Each structure stands twice: as structure tokens, then as C-alpha cells.
């Protein structure tokens, strides 16, 4: 293919849909809204099935060692118990490469709470009661769950999450720090946190053995997942089935925040249970307690951030080194410092990630993995630098705005951070901010304002396919195995399809959440709308190309996600500026956040209603991260001891006051046919730092460890 042909194809593939757009850009109500508010939306566990069996897991009560005896006699003898499955009798898995999914395959215990069996009963109560009768003996080995930066066994992972390089080093940071007029060198920490979507992880699994020969078996699941196709392909591999033997359905999902982005051990456990009672649907819902050891979590981080600058606040050195944990049985390396690589202009830059492999459950994705914890460290450090230089923190950031991506040298597809900062400063009343920390007092409250930058990469994941069909009576059906985890994706995809077909919104139905639909990539990395949306645009264009404006009944055409040639030529990221006001009770240190404002630059906004909900939802989660969330790992037992909603605090409605989000009116002409870069995660990034910086402005106390609790601000 010649260069000219490539350019032509690119132009066609990435032609923006804006020209004929009618639905895109409007605040369409959610297509699934009515079903959800009336309670008729059937989530995985709600699906009516005939003759269900209920599974209750058995969990290890040691953090490391082996099961040497397991007495299931009493449990098995309970009326209504159908089977008790343990490592002794569970079906052997075809693929045990992924240790998290290698469930009941040996007597080894790698973390406290790990599955060591499952009880199957006629009712949930019977299964739970019988599970309590199982007696287990262990051979316990010493365990270690404590992350510290001075551990001697920290190691350098090969790569970090999303395939980023583990370390980067440009110029000479040490020399630049030495020579710098102003420096910041501090340690920032973020705690272990749990995703805690409202809907727990649930699966209903049916094993149909067919003729008894594995090649005839059929496995179907109703599952609460961010990716039906990932669950299908993974379970097929683990159980030695062809993908076409497995069907996964997930029409409604009550949140995931990354914890449902990939199958976890409970999926395998449910299928092992289903194999023990062939033909009967096995229902498994993790309890809230169980979710704290089995559904992923955000690693704690210890971050050293060093900044060097001249008197004017121009950065000469940026170093961000993160220490984090992973589980001993499976590596997950959070990309905590990766966002720092492209954020500010500085000739000398270094980032590094080191891991401790501990006897903890397997960490995983949690909303904005990498950026969310990493921008606490970086953006609080920037605030400290502003104080050290005597500069306004907005101005400091403006002065360090890079013209091109400092890491790759590529031009930006659209970097409007400065506009976000300036726009936000005006809207928020930034000029009224107390110049000297701890000096504004209203009644018994100390008042302060803070700011932080946000960013999130533009991800578009290839591999999706969509099919458009026409019924001959004015209705189009678009099929793609995408997931709406509460984000509004279903609605947005319907808008995109309507515009791409040039028909009214009401003439299109989009089908999602079923692995029998054309394959789709995960609802993760804020990539769904861009990936599936551009795929749908391609399918709709193929459809019109084949059938024109007057298609016959039964007309059908498909399309794949178009390639993204600009992704290699441009550095593509979303940006934002977050502002927070805090009020700290001078007597008790209690913290209120009466106002938050986020100004975002994310390319085109497809649906202002659902977009706003994503932004303020992310900011609220950032508030919760700033002030509340902390999984307390008791290193003596090796488990999270505050494992319920009374003890693991998430911001309540009363904690969330005025949270507002606005966005620049723009489109990113390089971001595929939609010009949209993704909005699901950026709202949480920077919000904790904005609050921490506001706390400093209010009190003069610099908190470098999350969460910021009243005891830290007591006088």
C-alpha cells in the first residue's frame, strides 16, 4: 500500500460523524433507565432459572500454608446439601497458568480468604449453614503482608499494567536536583482500597454435559462482568472447551470500577460447582465480606516524588518512584508513576516501579489504575513546590506546560490543560483563595481552596465487531457484545448508531451483553465508547455502502473497529483541572468539602447527561479516596479487618455536597470518527490531591498519606 492510499483510507475511516450528527451531543435519557428505576432490569443473579442450586464458598482462614485435612461429612449430611466440592474432588482444570483462576486444584493456600471449597445446597441458607459445619486443618506457614519501602525483596517487574515500561530515565535527575534553586523531596502514600461496586460479583452457571464427552459439553453463564467475551475466552481455556461451547450473558451490571474487568476465581468456582450438579443452574453471589479477598483491589502505594525547579518554578527535574504490592501467586504491577512521564516539561525525568510479592489476594484494576494513586503524589508535590516558590499553584502548572509530549516527543492531539485551569479558576473564584495557609477562619471553621491537574490516556482497543440488521419496517438492530456497567454506554452507542445510520434515535435498538453477539473488548480503560462506537460507525457505514438509504428486509452488514493511524503520530490524552474547597473544624479536625469543580478536556462529549454523571461520579470517588477509603490489612492475620460497609467507609450522600463538572466544547480530530477520548476515569484523577491541597491551604498542615482523617488535623 502506498503512502497516498493509506492517507486516503485514513481520511475515510476517521471522517468525523459530526456533520450529520443529530443524536450525538444531546442529553438523551438512558435507554435502560426505566428498567432500572422500576426494578425490572434483571441483573445476573436475578435471572429466573429453573431448579437453581445455591453455592456458598469455603475460604481459607490462614494466609499461607496448606490444607491438611478437611472434614465435610457433617456438611454433606445436611438435608438439602447436594455436594461439597474441595480440592480433593474438584474437576481438574485444563489450564492452570493463571494462579488466581487455578481454583481447588491443590491443597496450597496463598492468601487468607482464598477458596478452599464450595457447598452446593437447595437454598442459600442451607448452603451457608452447611459451609459453617466444614472443619479444616491447616499446616500454617509464616506469612508476610506488609508493604514497606525498605524491604530488601522489592523487585523490578518486567513491565507494568497496560504494557508501560517499568522504569524511565532521561537526563540526570540527581545532578539537576543538586543544582536546583528549589526542591521538593517527599514520600506520599495511598492505602489498599477495594472497588466495592454496589452489585456484588455474581454468576449463574449451567453445565450441560451433552453426551458426556467434553467436546459436547455446553457451559452457559449469567455473569456480572465488564466483558462477556473475556469471561468466555478465559473460562473456555481454563476448562478446555472451545469458545463456541461457552455462552456468557450480562445484560445489566451494577458497577464494576475495574473489578469485573476480567474473570476472577468465583467464576471458576461457580463452574466447578455446576459440573458437580450437571444440568442445574448454580447461583453464586459473593458476600460483601468475600469481595474483600476475591475480587481484586487497588494496591497500596509508597511514592517518592522529587521535583527540582528554578526560582520561577520552572521544573528542571521530576522523579517519581513507586513501591507497591502484588500477590505472590500472580503479578499485577500498577503503573503508578506512568502518568508523570508526559505531564510536565522538565529536561531531567525519572520514573520507577518496584514490587513486593506478598501473601495477599490478587490486586487488580480499580478506577484509573496508575493515575488515581500516582496523581495524589505528583499533584501534592506540585502544590508543595508552588508554596516553596511562592507561586500560585495554577500559575506553576501553566509555567510547566510542555509543548510536545516530553516522553515521546510527539505533538499533542489536543492538550488543553491550561484552558481547563484558567476556566476553572474563574468559575471557582480562585482569586479569593487565602494566599497564606491557615489564615481564613469563618466561625469555628478553617477554610481553604486547592487545585490539582488530571489526566487520562486515550485508549482504543482493537478487536471489536458490530453487525447492523434491518427489519424492513423502519427498525435497525445493532449487535455488539459490549457492556454497560452503569456508565451510559448503551445509550451512547444507540446515539452513535442513529447518527451513523442517519435515522432517528427511536429507530435503533442496540443489543449488548451477550457473548453470542459479535465480539467486543472490555469496558475498561475508559475505552468503551471510542472502541465500540467507532466499530458501530464502521458497521453502519458498511451497511449504507451495501444497501443505500432504502435497505431491504433482512439486510445485514458488519464492520470491525477501524485502525487508528493517528495514535502513532500524536500523543493523545484527556486533561482536567480539579478545584476543591474544604472546611476543617478547628476543634475536632472534621473535614467537609462544600464545593468541588472539575473542568475537563476529553474531546467530543457524546451525551452531556451521562458524561456529567461519569465526571461527578469519578470526582465523588476521588473525594471518598481523599477522606475515607482504606482497607485495613491486619498483618498478623493477613486479611482486611474492616470488610463491610459499616467499617470500610465510602463517602455517603451527606459527605458529598456541591460537586460540579463542566467541559470544553471541542472535538479531538485525531481521536477516531467520534473525536471522543473517553471519560470514565479522569474524574477520580487529581481529586484527592485537590482536596489534600485545600486542606493545606485551610490549616497549614500538609497531609501526605491518604486518607485524610480528622485525627491528622487536630490541634
Amino acid at each position: 500500500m502506498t503512502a497516498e492510499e493509506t492517507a486516503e483510507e485514513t481520511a475515510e475511516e476517521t471522517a468525523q460523524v459530526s456533520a450529520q450528527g443529530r443524536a450525538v451531543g444531546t442529553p438523551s435519557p438512558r435507554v435502560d433507565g426505566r428498567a432500572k428505576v422500576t426494578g425490572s432490569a434483571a441483573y445476573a443473579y436475578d435471572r429466573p432459572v429453573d431448579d437453581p442450586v445455591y453455592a456458598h464458598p469455603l475460604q481459607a482462614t490462614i494466609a499461607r500454608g496448606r490444607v491438611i485435612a478437611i472434614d465435610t461429612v457433617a456438611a454433606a449430611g445436611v438435608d438439602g446439601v447436594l455436594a461439597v466440592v474441595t480440592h480433593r474432588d474438584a474437576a481438574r482444570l485444563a489450564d492452570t497458568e493463571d494462579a488466581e483462576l487455578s481454583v481447588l486444584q491443590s491443597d496450597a493456600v496463598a492468601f487468607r480468604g482464598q477458596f478452599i471449597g464450595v457447598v452446593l445446597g437447595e437454598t442459600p441458607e442451607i448452603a451457608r449453614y452447611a459451609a459453617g459445619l466444614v472443619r479444616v486443618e491447616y499446616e500454617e506457614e509464616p506469612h508476610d503482608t506488609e508493604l514497606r519501602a525498605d524491604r530488601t525483596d522489592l523487585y523490578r517487574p518486567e513491565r507494568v499494567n497496560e504494557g508501560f515500561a517499568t522504569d524511565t530515565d532521561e537526563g540526570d535527575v540527581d545532578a539537576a536536583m543538586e543544582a536546583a534553586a528549589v526542591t521538593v523531596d517527599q514520600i506520599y502514600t495511598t492505602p489498599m482500597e477495594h472497588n466495592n461496586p454496589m452489585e456484588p460479583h455474581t454468576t449463574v452457571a449451567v453445565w450441560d454435559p451433552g453426551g458426556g464427552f467434553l467436546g459436547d459439553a455446553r457451559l452457559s453463564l449469567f455473569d456480572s462482568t465488564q466483558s462477556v467475551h473475556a469471561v468466555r475466552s478465559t473460562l473456555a481455556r481454563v476448562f478446555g472447551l472451545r469458545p463456541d461451547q461457552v455462552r456468557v450473558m450480562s445484560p445489566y451490571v451494577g458497577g464494576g470500577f475495574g473489578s469485573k474487568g476480567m474473570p476472577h476465581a468465583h467464576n471458576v468456582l461457580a463452574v466447578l460447582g455446576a459440573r458437580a450438579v450437571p444440568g442445574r443452574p448454580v447461583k453464586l453471589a459473593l458476600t460483601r465480606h468475600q469481595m474483600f479477598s476475591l475480587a481484586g483491589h487497588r494496591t497500596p502505594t509508597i511514592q517518592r516524588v522529587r521535583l527540582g525547579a528554578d526560582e520561577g518554578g520552572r521544573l528542571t527535574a521530576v522523579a517519581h518512584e513507586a513501591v507497591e504490592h502484588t500477590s505472590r501467586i500472580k503479578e499485577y504491577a500498577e503503573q503508578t508513576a506512568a502518568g508523570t512521564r508526559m505531564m510536565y516539561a522538565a529536561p531531567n525525568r525519572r520514573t520507577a516501579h518496584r514490587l513486593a510479592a506478598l501473601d495477599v489476594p490478587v490486586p487488580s484494576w480499580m478506577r484509573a489504575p496508575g493515575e488515581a494513586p500516582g496523581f495524589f503524589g505528583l499533584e501534592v508535590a506540585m502544590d508543595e513546590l508552588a508554596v516553596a516558590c511562592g507561586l500560585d499553584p495554577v500559575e506553576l502548572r501553566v509555567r510547566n506546560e510542555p509543548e510536545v509530549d516530553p516522553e515521546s516527543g510527539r505533538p499533542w492531539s489536543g492538550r488543553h490543560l491550561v484552558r481547563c485551569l484558567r476556566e476553572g479558576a474563574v468559575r471557582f473564584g480562585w482569586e479569593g483563595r487565602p494566599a497564606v495557609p491557615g489564615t481564613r477562619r469563618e466561625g469555628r471553621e478553617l477554610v481553604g481552596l486547592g487545585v490539582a491537574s488530571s489526566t487520562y490516556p486515550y485508549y482504543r482497543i482493537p478487536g471489536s465487531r458490530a453487525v447492523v440488521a434491518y427489519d424492513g419496517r423502519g427498525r435497525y438492530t445493532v449487535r455488539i457484545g459490549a457492556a454497560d456497567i452503569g456508565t451510559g454506554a448503551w445509550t451512547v452507542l444507540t446515539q452513535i448508531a442513529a447518527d451513523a445510520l442517519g435515522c432517528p434515535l427511536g429507530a435503533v435498538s442496540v443489543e449488548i451483553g451477550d457473548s453470542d453477539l459479535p465480539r467486543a473488548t472490555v469496558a475498561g480503560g475508559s475505552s468503551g465508547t471510542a472502541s465500540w462506537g467507532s466499530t458501530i460507525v464502521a458497521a453502519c457505514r458498511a451497511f449504507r455502502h451495501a444497501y443505500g438509504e432504502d435497505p431491504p428486509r433482512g439486510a445485514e452488514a458488519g464492520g470491525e473497529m477501524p485502525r487508528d493511524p493517528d495514535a502513532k503520530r500524536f500523543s493523545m490524552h484527556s486533561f482536567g483541572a480539579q478545584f476543591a474547597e474544604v472546611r476543617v473544624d478547628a476543634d475536632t479536625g472534621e473535614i467537609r468539602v462544600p464545593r468541588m469543580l472539575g473542568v475537563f478536556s476529553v474531546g467530543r462529549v457524546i451525551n452531556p447527561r451521562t458524561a456529567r454523571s461519569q465526571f461527578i461520579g469519578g470526582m465523588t470517588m476521588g473525594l471518598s479516596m481523599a477522606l475515607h477509603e482504606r482497607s485495613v490489612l491486619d498483618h498478623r492475620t493477613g486479611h482486611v479487618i474492616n470488610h463491610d460497609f459499616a467499617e470500610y467507609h465510602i463517602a455517603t450522600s451527606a459527605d458529598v455536597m456541591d460537586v460540579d463538572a463542566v467541559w470544553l466544547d471541542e472535538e479531538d480530530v485525531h481521536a477516531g470518527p467520534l473525536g471522543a477520548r473517553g471519560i470514565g476515569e479522569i474524574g477520580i484523577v487529581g481529586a484527592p490531591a485537590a482536596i489534600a491541597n485545600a486542606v493545606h491551604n485551610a490549616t497549614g498542615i500538609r497531609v501526605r498519606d491518604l486518607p485524610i482523617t480528622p485525627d491528622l488535623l487536630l490541634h
Partner: protein
Amino acid sequence: MIPFEYLRAGDPAEAVAAVAGRPGAAFLGGGTNLVDHMKLGVARPDLLVDVSRLPLDRVEETGSGLRIGAAVRNSDLAAHPLVRERYPVLARALLSGASGQLRNAATTAGNLLQRTRCPYFQDVTTPCNKRDPGSGCSAIGGYTRYHAILGASEHCVAVHPSDMAVAMLALDAVVIVLGPAGERALPLADLHRLPGDTPQRDTVLEHGELITAVELPDLPFARRSAYRKVRDRVSYSFALVSVAACLDLDGGAVRDVRLALGGVAHKPWRAALAEEALLGATVTEEAFRRAAEAELAAARPLHGNEFKVPMVRNAIVATLRDLAEEGR
């Protein structure tokens, strides 16, 4: 299913007889604490005697004060006009607890007898002397943010979690108890115990003793009273520390005062030493601070909850200061 029997008692005497006659039996109020414990395996009663629908659901004037039926729901008590008018500290304490849904279900007696929220107590996979006597105390050396600074023992460092009880203690409440041998009146101050070496016993009640009512004596100056709850989030969280106070001023001096603390001990804590220091004192922040410090001299914080000492001190000062300002 975990087997247990259920009985809806027809009258208080029947309830007492049913529980007293069976070691594994328990009274059931709103169930917001007990039923959770049954699900968690913390409590395993074999008979539940439901007392939530006994005719103990009225708030009545007694001539010398108020009589609150044991089955009165927390939300009804908080909204009662006489409570709001005469004992605002109690209404505020109730409304600062739990959530609207829980308060609609929770009863007065159940609230007094709710058990500690110590996370180790609620997690049957960890040792706990209160749940399993002699097994050890996991909180010591562990997560102690919500634990005691006063009156604890080496066997247990848990706190009593109720907000309502702290306010009632400041109001000199008396608990009416019906047992197999008849009725007795017990000052609320004597109901809850310190842990000592028997932390499994939260109160002095014998098995089968039913709380039928709580009586609040007339305390005119309680009209100027306040409840201050310091917590990690604004709603739906237990107190880190809390202060219930009633203040009577005579010009610039303290004529009378009632002060009780929550979140600091195995029982709602009457701050008698602070009260003593305040009587007759001139109303100044300094006097309030000295009184708080007198009470806290005995504080023995744990590793991890040292902050509670200054937090209680500041909360006492702030509560008294606000009440004094209200009076000006």
C-alpha cells in the same frame, strides 16, 4: 438453614419466662444488631423471643419526668415533641446514629444492649475474649482506631457504640427491668460494665431479664443540652468520640452540669471528674479545658488511638463553649 425457633411474646411476663427458661434463648427487638450477628455467626440463639411488638411502645409523662417504652423505635423517640423540647441532647444523639432505615427498626432497649462494633468481635475467624472467652484479644496490637482509652483491661479494649445511651446517661436515666423474680429499677450508670476479666458480659443483666422501659427524671436545665459526635464521615458512622452535655449557668458561673462521653470506654462514660471540676467554675474555655483534662488524666490510649485524648478534650470544650454561648 441455621435452625432456631421464633416466638412472639404476648406480654412481658411470658417473654421473660420464655427466655429465662432456656439458656440459648434471646430477646429480639428490631433485630438490626442481633440478626446481623446471627448471619455472621457471632450469636447463635436457638430461640428468638420477639419483644418488639409488646405494648411497650409509648412515651409517657410520669409527673417527675418521661417514661420511654422499651419497644419505642429510635426514630419515633427522636421525633417526639417532649423529647425535642425537654431533652434535645437525646434527640440529637439518636439522629446522629445509624441511618434512617435502621432507626425506624431499632428499639430503645435494643439500642442500649447493642454490642460492640469491634471488628474482631464481629469476625469469627479471629480470637476475641468477648465472643469466645479466653481466646485472646485481637484488637490489642491490631486495629484500634475505634477502641477504648478509659476503663479498658488487658482482656478487652472495646467500646460501647451507642449514641443514645450516652445522652441518656447524661440525663441520669433509670432502666426498668423485669426478671423472673419481679421488677427492679437500675440506674443506667450501673447497667453497663467495664470489661475486667469477663468481657463477655456487657451488662449486669441476668439471662432472662427484660428491659421494659427507660425513665428520664425531670431535669429542667437539660433544655439547654447538646450532643457532639466526632466521626470519620458525616453520616452512617460510629463515633470516634462523642460528648453529651447539659449546662446550667448562673451568670458567669456553672451552676450545674451533666457530661457523658461516648466512644471512649466499654460503657457510656459519665465524666464525673469533669463535672466536679466544673461546678461553680467561671465560664471560660480554660475552665472547660481543665475539667476535660481532669477527666482524661486516667486515659490510657492504645497504639493507634492516641488521638482520642486531644479529640475528646477539644470536643468537651467545644460542646460546653457552644452551650454557654447559646445561653448568652
